[in-house]
């Protein structure tokens, strides 16, 4: 988008509107900056730049003097008469004259298309320099090289494209004569020898040749290929621009670029650099200076950027000229791809100023962008040992063990070990090692080093240029920062910050930055659907609440039985006699009580859905040969199943081991009583898994009721709770009406429901089937990532309808992974579900997606009403 987008259609035909003026009035086709609209010309004729300059003038911002030769008439600038008129007009608007020694003026010719495109011919600066006046100009600037370098570039272009000098000798001359001044002389000598005419001294003749060179360059195979690649018309006409290049002392003159917002924070804070001397399209590297060194200050620049932002409603960028410490704009546009943080902050700023509605601001940031802003990073506690900070060369965070050679990296990587390849410098021989590694660390090179290019090409996080890295391959050690590490030691590196830490750090999701939090709060005001988290521990709940979760939609209690508690549950299931079983149950109940108390404390006064045990039996059985004795071995063998995922699982296990659910429920209710004593009252929801018969639910509900009674008898407190069920089998969905007689809420377990509706075993089809189905076009996305609206979705819709017909106020939610997918969330919102529940790191995404769903539907409705 450029400053012109609000007026002109893109790529308007350029030739029709402007008629080249008759030869006797050569200046008629020239349009000074700011006068295009008055003459009825738009971006089609003026080009994006000409129209942008018009707009800048209209906004009252300072612009560099110059003129446009509209697209339909640009060839006329190759004629001496028009070129002379152009020189005179620029002299007039700038108040200077070419050749004036005191206030010197040169000209700069550039080309533009109706929109911002790539592949335009390079700008030709320094028109008007001659061997005779060059000395005097250098004296004004105070630096010699700047002028000669820019001049050499112009001569090179004009020689090849307007004076028919072959390219090869010109290339050779540039290779052989590195000094800028000698270069100009060598190039002019070549023009004298091979050129169709001598290089003129007259500025108008130079300008006419320069125009011819730019247009010829626009007609080369290279330029045509570029137009094709951008799907631009082959005969796209260019507008030409003649700008004043006002020469002044390097201490007070130059040129630069600036964007309105800081890329990291997104705040309004002009960022950019400026260069002293004569403007060039590709400034020499490492010569830019920060904006705060502008002797005349940045107030005018800030004013310009702010004015443009308010006008364009986008983060903006400008090119500017500094002459005698004053700023004049050379170009301005909305940033093509502003940094995400900048877009977020701007949306919040505009809404706070009243320039946008809050809902419009929310709509500007997509759920996918929310995800992007919450990229994974190391979970830092402040106790990590920072070894060194290098250059962030390839994004991502990874941990692994050090390998000091490709060979070692390949060996370690072969058995699945995460490896970080560490090398002082990289050669082609290190590429195989980089491919086998999880991340790359080098001691030399920068973000554009070969190592960085390869790492990004292979999608590996990398930190380059870590100072003081010393590799000693002979003894297998590396010194990083002050520490000596051995091959095989763990390190962690963050390719976004350049930080390298000792040891393997855990990776987690970043919290939203402040302005995103604001937008998410506004999204919360808009959305209807509640967002909860799937969390099993107090720590996960804390993380999710900080990310905006309104409660826990799924607490899986399986982990309470695994790990160090596995022997207890094993004793319950394989117990030889009831006494041993009861003893084990008591121990389990005690352990769960502690878990639940921590969880409920973290939940606070929010709702929390606790799912009673749902794990396939085989996870609790000892591996063959690992049982305590032959009798237990026999009992375990009798319990092994052919297909555990469809076997003795969920409520089925609980109905066979009748003390399991009561023990869990009693632990839960007793924990609630403890927590309630501290003044916190979580809204408890007890959920029964893997139901397919209403009778199963009725039986499980009775267990829970008895547990509540037992706790009430013991403590005198009647714990308020709701009882509900997972809907994760097709039969449960079909019998939703009957289930609703026993259940106060449903939670759709869309992972299992998808598996059972398709008859897919997830792990197997993901490995063998889904990719091929997607390739064939049978599926557009994995049904495990995006809820299938036609099959699984239809079952949910039917269940919702049947359940509500029996119990109108029944609470309905989704707790599969789909709860974090924007399209699936919109589907759930459309069905009128009450909440979605997803993993903690997707909570902000779900909040935004739920708001977009409402706004999108509102937009559709207003559209169809019209």
């Amino acid at each position, binding site marked *: 988008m450029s400053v012109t987008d609000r007026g002109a259609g893109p790529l308007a035909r350029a030739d029709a509107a402007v008629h080249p003026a008759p030869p006797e009035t050569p200046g008629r086709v020239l349009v000074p900056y700011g006068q295009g609209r008055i003459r009825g010309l738009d971006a089609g004729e003026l080009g994006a730049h000409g129209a942008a300059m018009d707009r800048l003038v209209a906004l009252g911002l300072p612009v560099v003097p110059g003129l446009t030769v509209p697209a339909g008439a640009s060839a006329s600038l190759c004629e001496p008469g028009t070129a002379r008129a152009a020189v005179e007009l620029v002299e007039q608007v700038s108040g200077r004259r070419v050749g004036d020694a005191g206030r010197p003026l040169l000209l700069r010719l550039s080309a533009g298309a109706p929109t911002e495109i790539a592949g335009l011919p390079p700008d030709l600066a320094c028109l008007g320099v001659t061997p005779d006046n060059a000395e005097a100009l250098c004296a004004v600037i105070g630096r010699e090289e700047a002028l000669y370098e820019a001049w050499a570039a112009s001569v090179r272009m004009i020689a090849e494209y307007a004076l028919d000098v072959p390219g090869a000798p010109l290339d050779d001359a540039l290779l052989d004569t590195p000094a800028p001044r000698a270069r100009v002389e060598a190039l002019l000598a070549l023009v004298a020898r091979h050129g169709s005419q001598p290089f003129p001294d007259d500025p108008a003749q130079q300008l006419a040749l320069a125009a011819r060179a730019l247009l010829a360059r626009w007609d080369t195979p290279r330029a045509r290929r570029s137009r094709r690649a951008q799907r631009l018309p082959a005969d796209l006409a260019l507008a030409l621009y003649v700008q004043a290049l006002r020469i002044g002392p390097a201490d007070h003159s130059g040129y630069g670029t600036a964007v309105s917002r800081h890329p990291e924070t997104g705040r309004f804070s002009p960022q950019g650099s400026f260069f002293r001397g004569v403007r060039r399209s590709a400034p020499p590297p490492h010569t830019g200076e920060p904006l705060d060194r502008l002797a005349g200050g940045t107030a005018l620049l800030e004013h310009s950027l702010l004015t443009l932002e308010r006008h364009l409603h986008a983060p903006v960028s400008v090119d500017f000229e500094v002459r005698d410490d004053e700023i004049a704009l050379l170009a301005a546009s909305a940033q093509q791809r502003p940094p995400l943080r900048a877009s977020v902050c701007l949306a919040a700023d505009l809404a706070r100023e009243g320039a946008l509605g809050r809902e419009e601001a929310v709509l500007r940031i997509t759920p996918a962008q929310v995800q992007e802003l919450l990229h994974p990073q190391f979970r830092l506690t402040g106790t990590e040992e920072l070894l060194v900070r290098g250059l962030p060369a390839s994004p991502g965070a990874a941990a692994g063990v050090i390998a000091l050679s490709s060979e070692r990296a390949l060996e370690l990587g072969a058995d699945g070990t995460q490896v970080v390849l560490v090398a002082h410098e990289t*050669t082609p*021989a290190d590429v195989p090692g980089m*491919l086998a590694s999880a991340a790359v660390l080098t001691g030399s090179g920068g973000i554009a080093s070969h190592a960085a290019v390869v790492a990004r090409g292979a999608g590996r996080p990398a930190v380059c240029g870590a100072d003081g890295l010393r590799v000693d391959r002979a003894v297998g050690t590396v010194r990083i920062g002050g520490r000596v590490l051995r091959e095989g030691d763990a390190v962690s590196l963050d390719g976004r910050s350049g930080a390298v830490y000792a040891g393997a750090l855990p990776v987690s999701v970043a919290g939203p930055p402040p302005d995103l939090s604001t937008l998410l709060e506004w999204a919360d005001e808009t959305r209807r659907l509640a967002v909860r988290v799937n969390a099993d521990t107090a720590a996960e709940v804390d993380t999710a609440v900080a990310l905006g979760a309104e409660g826990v939609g799924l607490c899986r209690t399986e982990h309470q039985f695994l790990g160090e508690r596995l022997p207890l549950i094993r004793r319950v299931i394989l117990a030889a006699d009831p006494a041993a079983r009861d003893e084990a149950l008591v121990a389990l109940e005690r352990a769960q009580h502690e878990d639940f108390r921590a969880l409920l404390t973290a939940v606070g006064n929010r709702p929390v859905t606790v799912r009673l045990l749902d794990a396939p039996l085989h996870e609790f059985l000892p591996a063959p040969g690992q049982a305590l004795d032959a009798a237990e071995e026999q009992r375990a063998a009798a319990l092994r199943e052919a297909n555990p995922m469809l076997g003795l699982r969920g409520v089925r296990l609980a109905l066979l081991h009748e003390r399991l659910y009561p023990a869990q429920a009693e632990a839960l209710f007793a924990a609630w009583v403890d927590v309630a004593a501290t003044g916190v009252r979580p809204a408890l929801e007890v959920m029964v898994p893997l139901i397919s018969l209403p009778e199963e639910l009725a039986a499980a509900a009775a267990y829970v009721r008895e547990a509540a009674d037992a706790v009430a008898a013991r403590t005198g407190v009647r714990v308020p709770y709701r009882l509900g069920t997972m809907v994760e089998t097709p039969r449960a969905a079909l019998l939703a009406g009957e289930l609703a007689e026993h259940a106060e809420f449903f939670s759709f377990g869309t992972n299992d429901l998808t598996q059972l509706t398709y008859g897919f075993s997830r792990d197997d089809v993901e490995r063998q089937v889904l990719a091929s189905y997607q390739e064939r076009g049978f599926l557009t996305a994995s049904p495990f990532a995006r809820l299938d609206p036609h099959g699984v979705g239809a079952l949910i819709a039917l269940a919702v309808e049947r359940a509500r017909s029996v119990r109108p106020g029944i609470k309905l939610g989704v707790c599969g992974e789909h709860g974090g997918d924007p399209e699936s969330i919109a589907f759930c919102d459309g069905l009128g579900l009450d909440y979605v529940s997803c993993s903690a790191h997707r909570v902000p995404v779900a909040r935004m997606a739920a708001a977009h769903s409402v706004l999108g539907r509102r937009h559709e409705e207003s559209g169809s009403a019209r």
Partner: protein
Amino acid sequence: MRSVAVDGTDALDESLTEAVVDLVLRGMWRGRPESEYRPLVDAGLAMVKGPMVLPTERAKETGARILRVGAGTGQEQQITAAYRAFLPVNRRLREVCTAWQCRPDGTPNDHSDLAYDAQVREALEDVHEAIQPVLRRLERALAGSGQYLTALEEALDRFDDGGTEWLASPLCDSYHTVWMRLHQELLLVLGVSRAQDEALEEELLAGDRG
């Protein structure tokens, strides 16, 4: 494993010479038939790691010795001149690859912005235009170096045919892969270390500051 002494290049027959140089310059072979790499492995010049064949330290030394031109010779001077012209373009090529992979704000380039990609392609064209006279000169001084221009052009063609990996992917003979090989050959031919190379590149760029 059978080990053969390879103290001098005399000990290697010509096919092995060519192969060891190729392996050293490429850094690895993938998907080559065993008949090609077996002789190198037997000679202690290559090792097999899973699907890859890597040069041994001995191979690297041998390759360097084979490639090194006579110090102080006219040939060395000519190649040095080409190498000095190569270095500033080398920096630009790496910047082009960086721009192709990452947008200026550091986020990965997802190639959804035609104009941005076209701009990078233009910068690549500038690099390609700039390297051609350098390679023409190099070819006069270093036999066989003409292959690089051919390989670069082939990568460029494939890139323009829509194979976006042909600019910077390390997994094919992309523009960058071929370029790295050219760079490595220049270093070995002239006996320049990576550290010297980096310092010289900085120096030449500093000299370019106006």
